[in-house]
């Protein structure tokens, strides 16, 4: 196996054009290879030292550009992301262990294309786009276009995800990501849901987007949701999520249980997002800030 440690984007793209595969933290790739999922590619290019991929910055329109090499740890602790794109911070804070969050990157998570990825549903509800670069230029695709199936993306082999673009948040907006987990840490989403809510001046839901984790072949967005009172919208999200999910049964959960729980997660995500939209602070991640996920000592 050959490895190029790239320090510039151009070097990385050249290596990709020559047939190398990108590696960032390597967690998915190395573990996968050892478990016989897929052998390590013959040629790898390490992209974790390309500084331009590791920055978080405002875009001109008030949105955010997160480099593909930005770690989950950076995302979970970034005050801007926490305040304005809270659902993404909620999600990154739940990924694996502290070590995984230091090594694992947003780009790696997104391009791995797992339907159980935690950051996926938040990106969908934010209307995010992935910026894919190659030797011949770059393009931006929305998430639904990017993910085509479990572990599969529409990116070409010589394209590298260099950044995620998040549109600016509207006033009175809030978001949240919750997942069902059996332990308080070291989990993979059994199901998860992200919600982004914008409130009217009198506190009703003006617009809402909800996306679901681990209930279909890819991250899916719930359709048909409209504004209304927070309670009505949360209830509608619960019903729609359970209705639109197409979960499987596996050793983590039955399809029936998943279908029930995705509704619960969707409802709670809308409720938490609405609370945040109203100006309330709920700590990152929501999973450990409210309800059953709270620390044992904090509950009584």
């Amino acid at each position, binding site marked *: 196996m050959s490895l190029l440690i790239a320090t510039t984007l151009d070097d990385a793209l050249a290596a990709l054009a020559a047939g190398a595969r990108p590696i960032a933290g390597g967690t998915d790739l190395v573990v996968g290879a050892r478990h016989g999922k897929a052998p390590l590619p013959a040629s790898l290019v390490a992209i974790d030292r390309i500084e331009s991929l590791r920055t978080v910055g405002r875009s001109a329109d008030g949105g955010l550009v997160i480099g593909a090499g930005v770690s989950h740890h950076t995302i979970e602790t970034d005050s801007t992301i926490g305040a304005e794109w809270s659902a993404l911070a909620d999600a990154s804070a739940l990924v694996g262990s502290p070590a995984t969050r230091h090594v694992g990157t947003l780009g790696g998570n997104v391009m791995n294309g797992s339907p159980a990825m935690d950051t996926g549903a938040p990106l969908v509800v934010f209307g995010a786009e992935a910026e894919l670069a190659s030797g011949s230029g770059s393009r931006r695709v929305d998430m639904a276009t990017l993910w085509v199936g479990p572990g599969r993306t529409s990116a070409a082999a010589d394209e590298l995800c260099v950044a995620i673009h998040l549109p600016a948040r509207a006033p009175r907006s809030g978001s949240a990501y919750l997942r069902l987990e*059996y*332990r308080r840490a070291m989990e993979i989403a059994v199901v998860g849901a992200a919600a982004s809510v914008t409130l009217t001046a009198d506190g009703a839901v003006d617009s809402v987007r909800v996306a679901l984790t681990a209930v279909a072949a890819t991250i899916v967005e719930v359709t048909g949701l409209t504004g209304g009172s927070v309670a009505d919208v949360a209830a509608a999200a619960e019903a729609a999520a359970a209705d639109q999910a197409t979960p499987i049964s596996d*050793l983590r959960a039955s399809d029936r249980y998943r279908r029930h*729980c995705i509704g619960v997660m969707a409802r709670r995500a809308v409720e938490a997002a609405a609370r945040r939209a109203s100006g309330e602070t709920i700590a990152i991640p929501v999973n450990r800030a409210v309800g059953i996920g709270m620390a*044992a000592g904090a509950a009584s």
Partner: protein
Amino acid sequence: MTVTEPHPARPAPRFVRADGPDKVTGSGRYTADLSLTGVLAAKFRYADVSHARITRLDVSAARAMPGVMSVLTAADVPDVRFGPFVQDRTLFATDVVRFEGEIIAAVAATTAEIAQRAADAIVVEFEPLPVVTDLEASLATDAPLVHGDWADYGSAEVVVRDRNDASFSSITKGDAAAAMAGADVVVSSRYVADGCHAAPIEPRAVLAQWEGDKVTIWTSTQVPFDARAGVCETLKLPANRVRIIVPHLGGGFGGKCGFHYEAHIAALARAAKRPVRLVFSRREEFLAPDRRREGMIIDITTGMRTDGTIIARSGWIAIDNGAYTADAGFFSQLAAMHVAGPYRVPNVSIEAHLVYTNHQPSGSVRAPTAPQACWALESHTDELAKAVGLEPVAFRKLNAVDTGAEGPSGQTYDEIGLQQCIDAATANAGYGQELPDDEAIGVAIGWWPSFSVPSGAYVKIDGDGSGQIITGAQECGTGAVMTLRQLAADELGMAAEDFQLVYQDTSVAPYDMGATGSQTLFNNGRAVVNAAGQIAEQLRKLAADHLEASPDDIVLADGHASVAGTPTATVSIAELAGIASGGELLIGHGSGQPPGPPPLVGSTCVGDLGMAAFVAPQFSCHAVRVKLDRDTGVARVLAVSTAHDSGTIINELGALGQVEGGVLMGIGQALTEGTTYDDQGKQRNAAMLEYKLQTCADAPPINTHFVQIATPDAGPRGAKGLAEAPNVATAAAISNALAAIIGRPVRRLPMTAERVWETLNEEAAR
């Protein structure tokens, strides 16, 4: 050993383990850390099917691969069937494979990669046989046999066997049927527990090297003498040509009890004429050993008077033995005792079957059968309390055994502290306080015997006054061996730090049963006290000569021998040791007489493997506060309060560590840890991500109280065992908390979120 001096401002260090500095600096070596010049790597070829006849086995391609130094199958080792209770196992599959982790062949090669490729290159063809996975179906008279030749197998004399029932046991006292017929209230329950795993963080490893006709085996076993006996039996070697050394052991919890792969690796090393090392992957650790915790079906019926007094109990238990009996032969009787429970029950009739299936074999995992049986019994007990309108703790106080009471098998107890345990644990938990409606405190009681077995140790004091304890005991992490220093030091008026330990080496020290049955301090403590006492006697004589006094007047304290009442007449033990080094050396050896079993009155036991009489019985009560997310069924343990009667506590810090670790393991068993099988009897979750141990983020605060009663006929200073008892009652207490919130019990273990949710839904549907 050196212990860093404490910071002057900090409190004096309490128990600091002799092996602690090795473990916190990374300098301590575990088996997988060892290597030898020329060492080869071993890999096994597993059956990978649950039940089949081998129709073709061809290792020629593997043997021909460059770098492969030896390939062994059943044809290459002595034809020996072994097993402590039923001789149903061979080192390698002979004709039929009976579970997926059964070893068909072993390979030693110059690298692990080559060894794996060679193992994969072995050609095996099978004729499928019917796979037996259901416990009740397996007991049917027309069920396919897991062992067609079962009747021809040797077994321990007291084991009662029939077809797929590998060990039947019953406890009968009084007339349960008649009493039940006359009872005012009768409650029947069925509870079903899945199997689970010991899951020590260290996967096992074995390294073997022959020199001439002697073999040294470094291995991660909890029971070095048992491992030696297994090697000797299967490879037909005398004990003095097999040396088992255990480097630091990375946890066991019973999973590393018994005899596992030492003989395979020794045989490979002999054939290859090179040292050979085996290191398990986590997946192998899940699939292959014959030591996972047994799944169980438990039916219990209890008859009561309207005032809640229990008058009769009957029970039927099926225990998943898996494909081979390993050390599980006594599980049927032990499970029957745990379903009877630490209660005053005058009429008892309980039957237990240890049932062959094509699952991985079961074996002693921390308090075998007890957490599941206690979970069932104590969940049932809350149902009983509800049925007679009594509060669950009051119901237990009414019926639980106490000093002088007779237990379900006809044993009358000396002074015991169960009632005090119930009081302490519930009081410390704040039991009875108002709680939110999604929270409850569940209470359960448990018990566990101490194991009385022979054990030996030497103690010596060298010429400079420093001491050595040379013991056959095995340290698996609990600190039990580490605590031996304190016992020797107290006997000799020295400090624990004055002693070093030489342990877990079968050619150096006398016999000990190993880190199993919570027996180390109980039995080896007695041996060390005995050995140190001999030296104390020598020192008193030496001091008497030196100080011109009578040996009876010599007091050993603070590193000195002094004449009682005359503190100026004193000599240091180091000086006496110097004197002794020129004459009669300071050497002690001890084993001590193990206490015998207490008498049983009025009960009869079929398949009696000695488990109906509890030597120095330990008792416990756990009170666990649980919060439930009613929408999803996810439960969280918020706080745990425990009280334990394990007799005198010799090392409180070590004892607390045992309780806290046992409780967390119990929480895992209660909520997240359970083996799931496919319809072919193969494990579906043989990985740490899918087999979920509790993490640091899940760990609740644990409050522990020891009810200390110096117990006669027990371990040193009236100590009983401790390491397994904390694992008994936690899952049961969690079950009762969940039942209090939901309104009915969750009848499957583990009580996963989905099962809790299903139980909630059944309730809603009513």
